[in-house]
């Protein structure tokens, strides 16, 4: 038989072929329409917003305990006072946020006209994992007027106790980011040095001031994180 110039005439050359090829092409059209309806209508909003990133609010609920220590330090001596946060605090919280240290003292010699001694305190950088280089840290202080010395260490990086808004990722990601118990694990060391300021009556043989009692308050601030999507 001579070829027909129109191939469609041969593809649809008899009833069976016409039916089969027509059904096939109709099926392709159905698939095309199905895809179009899902793409533009059923999942249209999801597809349009697939790059939209969710906003989250991260909030912290703080809790702290106070631990005290007291030392009598001789004139010119330096004492090292250690502190380790109890493990149960790590277990029951998301993280160790801040470490507040308060050093207090009074003039205890009882001598007349005895001025306050000079106390210097220095929180040593140890291998404890913490945000040692945070510019808001107060790692050392001096007092000569019996005022308390307050030190502050940011233990959990970027933690300042304030809630924050973030964009992207998901709740789990942000929750995990703020749940790391490795920060603050270990021993902190506080060096305290006393320089005694003699009373004006120090020339009298029975009058002297040779040491000072220093009280140290350790306040580890732990936090519990909560993340919620900002609607």
């Amino acid at each position, binding site marked *: *038989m*001579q*070829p*027909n*110039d*129109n*191939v469609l005439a*041969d*593809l649809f050359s*008899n009833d*069976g*072929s016409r039916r*089969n*090829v027509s059904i*096939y*092409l109709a*099926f*392709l059209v*159905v*698939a*095309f329409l*199905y*895809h*179009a309806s*899902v*793409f*533009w209508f*059923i*999942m249209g909003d*999801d*597809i*349009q917003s*697939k*790059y939209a990133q969710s906003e989250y609010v991260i909030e912290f609920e703080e809790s702290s305990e106070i631990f005290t220590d007291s030392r009598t330090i001789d004139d010119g001596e330096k004492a090292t006072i250690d502190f380790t946060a109890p493990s149960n605090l790590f277990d029951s919280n998301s993280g160790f946020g801040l470490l507040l240290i308060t050093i207090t003292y009074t003039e205890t010699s009882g001598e007349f006209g005895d001025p306050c001694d000079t106390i210097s305190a220095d929180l040593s950088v140890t291998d404890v994992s913490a945000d040692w280089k945070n510019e808001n840290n107060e790692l050392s202080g001096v007092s000569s007027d019996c005022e308390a010395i307050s030190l502050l260490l940011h233990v959990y990086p970027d933690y300042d106790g304030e809630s924050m808004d973030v964009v992207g990722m998901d709740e789990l990601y942000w929750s995990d980011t703020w749940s790391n118990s490795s920060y603050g694990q270990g021993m902190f060391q506080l060096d305290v040095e006393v320089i005694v300021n003699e009373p004006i009556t120090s020339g009298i043989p029975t009058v002297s001031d040779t040491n000072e009692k220093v009280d140290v308050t350790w306040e580890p601030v732990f936090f519990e994180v909560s993340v919620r999507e900002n609607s």
Partner: protein
Amino acid sequence: MILEIYLFDIVKTWQKLHFNQQFNLNVDEQNLLFIGAILSIALGGLSLRLVRQNSKLPWNEAIAAHILCLMFITKGIQNAAFGYVNSGSEGDVWQFWFQLAFAMDYIFESSIMAIALLYPVPLLRNLKQVKIGLGFVVFFALFRLTLDAMGFNLSAFALFGFFYFATAIIWGSVYIRFRLIPKEQQNQSTQNISLLSGLFTTLVLGHIWMWWPGFILQSEYFYFLDPFGQTLTTTTWDYIWGAGYAIGIAAGLTIISVEIYQAVRGNLNHLLYVVSPYFVLGVIGFLIYSQGSDAGFAVKSNTGENVQLWSTFTTGLHFTIIRPLIAMYILLKFNLLDINEKTKPMAKTMSIVLIVVATSAILELVQSIIPINQMISAALLGILIALGLGWEEKSFQTLVSNPSHIRRDLDSKWFPDLKISRKHISRIEIACLLYCLISLLVSFIVWEFDIILEIMSERSA
């Protein structure tokens, strides 16, 4: 087409360039690209020599065979170009490789459409139709290249995904016409024509078939497909691309349904064994891809290892290994290469290259999952290649000594006899070479003028 799978690496390039993120490559994918490039260029080049020596081919088969060989050479260049894009080279030279890869993809898509119009049965029935049909596919490639040179890269005008429609409609219709032919008209040629149509459809659409559950069950990994991210393509662009996939999946579902139906009726075709793994893998892939929210192609480096591995072992292998295998089978089995005493050594070299490269590529991939001692893997490679070559000896003989025919006992109306000289057919090679040279020039322009970077900055703004 190879383009899609490597888009996730391109996304990583965007990230590197614009978001200053860690450029985290999937090394296995990258190596696979270069292996695929070697394989495609070697097979395409050797096959082209053999096709040129085959003077017995009818006009449509000669043109289709030429285009098929050239298609694999250009595909190899594309693989290598994407490999360089992904290698994270310094500076903005990646734009050159990126554009070159696209230019080669245009010729791949046009080649596929040209082959579909001519083989296994020519839909173009006279010289005028041949000129118009082939003229259209050439124009289509040049039109897209021109758009790129003018700074309209990745615009909806380029009709990305159009060739999926062409493949599904043309080869799918031919497949249905000959596979469901009345029993009294069935013969080996009708079986072979439907097999060939099915094989070509698999070659083009196989990777899409592995996402069929995502299409039907409305999964994010299918419908969120956005290969170039929001910085380069619009939602309309993504839709056109996805619609091509939808049509491709519909064609695949039809083919597997027909094959199962025919197998149940006792009319089994080997095509069932080729097609069914894709659909079975689709079910497993659904479970894996559904773990994350990434689109199937846009598997990023920070996704789960399972998803990345799955993507490499399925889509990656289809592009780089399975496609050349199918092409090689078609060339040898359907007499597109004239295998005689003179040409046999070269044909055997081709099949050995295919086996050795494919075996080592697969072993490399396996090694990336299960770290094996290098000595053991070298020994394993030796054993596998020895076994492969033994199998090749046997299967090569079977293929060559028992070629399949598509014209015997079939009405001659399907095969019009057009007088197209070999001289004219050989000009396809010159045209392809010219296109490649123009592509290099366009890629150079795109790189020098930072066209892609400018587009990204405009569209993201």
